[in-house]
């Protein structure tokens, strides 16, 4: 392509960009209604065309820079290597995304803009990231469609709440116990559904989630029914409570800090961050072990798995149990953070959201879960003011993602195990 022709194409494109920007921006930026100070009608119409012009100019300018630095490079790229380059690029992108996410996650509470609200939302997002990673073991790796994952979250939360309030056990003892109980529930669900696959499995798990919720709702003597369980003890910093005053040494006394309610919020944030990272680390490791390989094989072809000598019963049960265990961990974190649990927190929509996170993120992709959680949970928080339109925006976002990226945001499942050069 000659440079002259190229140049005229760019000009055409810039004019087109300018036109679109003008049409869009004149009503958005150019017109403005303000409360009138002159007459009694209440509102007046002001024009801001100069600002609109500058914004249009800015858009065109950015588009021009794109032409110079971005599009030209794409055209120059050799064709034959593009597939390989793309893979390399995606791999790099995955790595940098992961590294950047980790750095941001660790420094977030100390950023200048981090207030209580932001840390709270981030904690909520991380809870969903952890749930997403836990469910990813069941759905993404083992390929068992689970529509009742929130049941394990509920079992974890109630286990923690009951253990902590009845036996006065500390968070660090209750956490593993809640995980074990949730894993046990996972096995309990696993047994009857061993023979089921796909749609049928989904229906049964859906029912299971509802059963757990109904038990929590109706077993009044044990769970408190619709009243839930309140006054769940807050976690302490390894025995040092977060309180203004206490009989024990408090956290701020230990470190010689001024008392602030933010300490506990930030501690909870780091707690869920570390729990989530443990989930991630565990998943990455287990993929390389025989049981992880068996999960992935089971997802692809159950009959072939049997012919190879994989025991499908044990494999499915371990997937259910381990996925449930992480759900239970997340549940006990949820209970200690809220200080209150009730069946209302564990409705089907929660299962649906967690599943949506996994599916939108790209089944089996760890970083995809993070991005999807930020998008789904973060955006619903962002649109909180829209109230009932929130679900509409939520649905729309999902539809758009499914149209644009039908296999999830990051659908390129990296092979778990590659044969290294040294082995060859």
């Amino acid at each position, binding site marked *: 392509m000659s440079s002259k022709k190229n140049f005229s194409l760019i000009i055409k494109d810039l004019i087109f960009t300018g036109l679109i920007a003008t049409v869009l921006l004149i009503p958005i930026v150019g017109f403005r209604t303000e409360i009138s100070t002159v007459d009694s009608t209440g509102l007046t119409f002001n024009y801001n065309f100069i600002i609109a012009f500058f914004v249009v100019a800015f858009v065109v300018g950015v588009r021009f820079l794109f032409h110079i630095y971005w599009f030209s490079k794409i055209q120059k790229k050799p064709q034959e290597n593009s597939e390989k380059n793309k893979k390399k690029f995606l791999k790099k992108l995955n790595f940098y995304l992961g590294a950047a996410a980790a750095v941001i996650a660790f420094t977030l509470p100390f950023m200048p803009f981090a207030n209580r609200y932001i840390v709270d939302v981030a904690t909520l997002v991380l809870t969903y990231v952890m749930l997403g990673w836990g469910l990813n073991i069941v759905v993404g790796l083992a390929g068992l469609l689970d529509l009742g994952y929130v049941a394990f979250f509920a079992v974890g939360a109630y286990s923690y709440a009951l253990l902590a309030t009845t036996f006065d056990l500390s968070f660090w003892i209750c956490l593993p116990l809640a995980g074990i109980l949730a894993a046990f529930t996972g096995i309990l669900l696993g047994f009857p559904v061993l023979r089921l696959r796909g749609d049928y499995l989904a229906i049964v798990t859906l029912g299971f989630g509802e059963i757990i919720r109904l038990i929590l709702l109706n077993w009044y003597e044990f769970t408190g029914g619709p009243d839930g369980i309140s006054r769940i003890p807050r976690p302490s910093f390894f025995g040092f409570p977060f309180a203004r005053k206490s009989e024990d040494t408090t956290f701020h006394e230990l470190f010689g800090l001024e008392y602030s309610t933010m300490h506990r919020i930030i501690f909870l944030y780091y707690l869920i961050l570390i729990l989530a990272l443990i989930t991630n680390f565990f998943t990455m490791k287990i993929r*390389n*072990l*025989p049981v992880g*390989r*068996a999960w*992935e*094989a089971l997802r*692809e*072809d159950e*009959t*072939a*798995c*049997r*012919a*190879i*000598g*994989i*025991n499908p019963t044990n494999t499915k049960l371990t997937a259910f149990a381990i996925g449930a265990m992480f759900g239970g961990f997340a549940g006990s974190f949820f209970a200690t953070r809220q200080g209150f649990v009730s069946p209302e927190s564990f409705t089907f929509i929660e299962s649906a959201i967690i599943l949506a996170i996994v599916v939108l993120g790209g089944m089996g992709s760890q970083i995809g879960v993070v991005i999807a959680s930020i998008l789904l949970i973060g955006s619903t928080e962002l649109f909180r003011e829209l109230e009932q339109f929130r679900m509409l925006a939520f649905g729309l976002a999902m539809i758009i993602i499914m149209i644009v990226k039908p296999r999830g945001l990051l659908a390129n*499942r990296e*092979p*778990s*195990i*590659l*044969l290294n050069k040294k082995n*060859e």
Partner: protein
Amino acid sequence: MLIAKNISSYYGNIQALDNISIEVNKGEIVSIIGSNGAGKSTLLMTLCGIVPAKTGSIIFNDTEISTLPTHEIIRMGVSQSPEGRRIFPKLTVYENLLIGDPLKREKDINLEFIFEIFPRLKERINQRGGTLSGGEQQMLSIGRALVSQPSLLLLDEPSLGLAPIIVKQIFETIKRINKENDTTILLVEQNAFGALKLSDRGYVLVNGKVTISGESKQLLENPEIKKAYLEGV
């Protein structure tokens, strides 16, 4: 090595195998030939417990295996390359091979012999299984079955849907596996001529029953078999 006596098996009410008795001795290649729906694949599936045998006994190395679950039979040294290859399309060739021994860790698995007989698999090691050609997928399926170093290898129609020249290569490799790796092989084939030429002994299956059996050489000469299975091949 493997003695199956009077086994019958059913899919629901439909009888697929009727009183079948076969025997495989150590070091042999035994082929089972027959037309579509004769029960060849069912026989293999029954031998390794995927389809349960309703009657009869299956004895492998002096152990009754007809009541054991599949994974336990396979851990005793039987391995199967299932019909239609059944590789895992989204996993890489390497991952496919590793799954061949679901109990061992990656570092304990030795793939040298498999790469020696199927150098093509080594070239494609980090490629997804689904991107391989039909012949390569068949190699992968056989390779995967060999990872657990079985003493008895069950092959279900390794020639299915492959070009004649590839079939020839696969058959030659099967012979190599039998000779060099000291693996006993039970081969189920529609390609009767190729299978009988390759094997020591053969069974002919018709409607779930063994009709003729004997040395492969004799079977190749048998006028009935010639008429039914070998004409035009």
